[in-house]
């Protein structure tokens, strides 16, 4: 499947784009997605390893299956407040 991943903050800056398009197997988890991004975008490798993913408006767990029907976002370590 093809998934689009929204980027924010330092991840967007490092990648130079607002979103990534990643090709994954149908049973891929967010852990697989993380590895795929690190492999295809070396500039994001360190930040992706420290990041979480969101599916829609909730955090996803690393072991969850990636659902391409919801908006997927890469959430690098947060610094609000």
């Amino acid at each position, binding site marked *: 499947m093809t998934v689009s991943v929204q980027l924010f903050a330092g991840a967007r800056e490092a990648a130079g784009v607002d979103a990534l398009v990643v090709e994954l197997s149908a049973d891929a988890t967010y852990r697989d997605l993380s590895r795929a991004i690190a492999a295809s975008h070396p500039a994001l490798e360190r*930040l992706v390893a420290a990041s979480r993913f969101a599916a*829609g408006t909730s955090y996803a767990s690393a072991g969850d299956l990636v659902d391409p029907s919801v908006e997927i976002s890469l959430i690098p370590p*947060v610094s609000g407040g």
Partner: protein
Amino acid sequence: MIEITDRPIDAAKMLAAAQQPSAGAVVLFLGITREFTGVGDALRQTDRLTYEAHRPMAEAELARLEAAARERWPLVACHVVHRLGEVPLAEASVAIVASSPHRAGAFEAGRWLIDELKRSAPIWKREHFADGSTEWVHPSPTTPPRAESPAR
């Protein structure tokens, strides 16, 4: 009530709204842009901060935090506001007000809300230093959960 806004936060208005006769205590927290971070040779001067969010998710996350705080403490008012975009020195990027019949609830809820917001809300700060350089702040995962981020 929660809010993500692009405008300055009106803390006086939030405070007035929290002063209801069923409450006995009101606690307001403001996180404001601090001019100097670090110490000694690592001292850096900030000119301003800018904030960015995954906006719908940040709204959902703040609403979850408000609901959880209301379950845990008997709050009368509970209002969490985060500002996005540019936040000049001494202005508030975040404001939290909690009122409750007794002071313990208001203090504990206020502290818990800012701690959790800093842990989970998908919001990012960018430092604009006085020397012209900029830097997105992504705290290292090795930072202990209760430690302070560089500019707070």
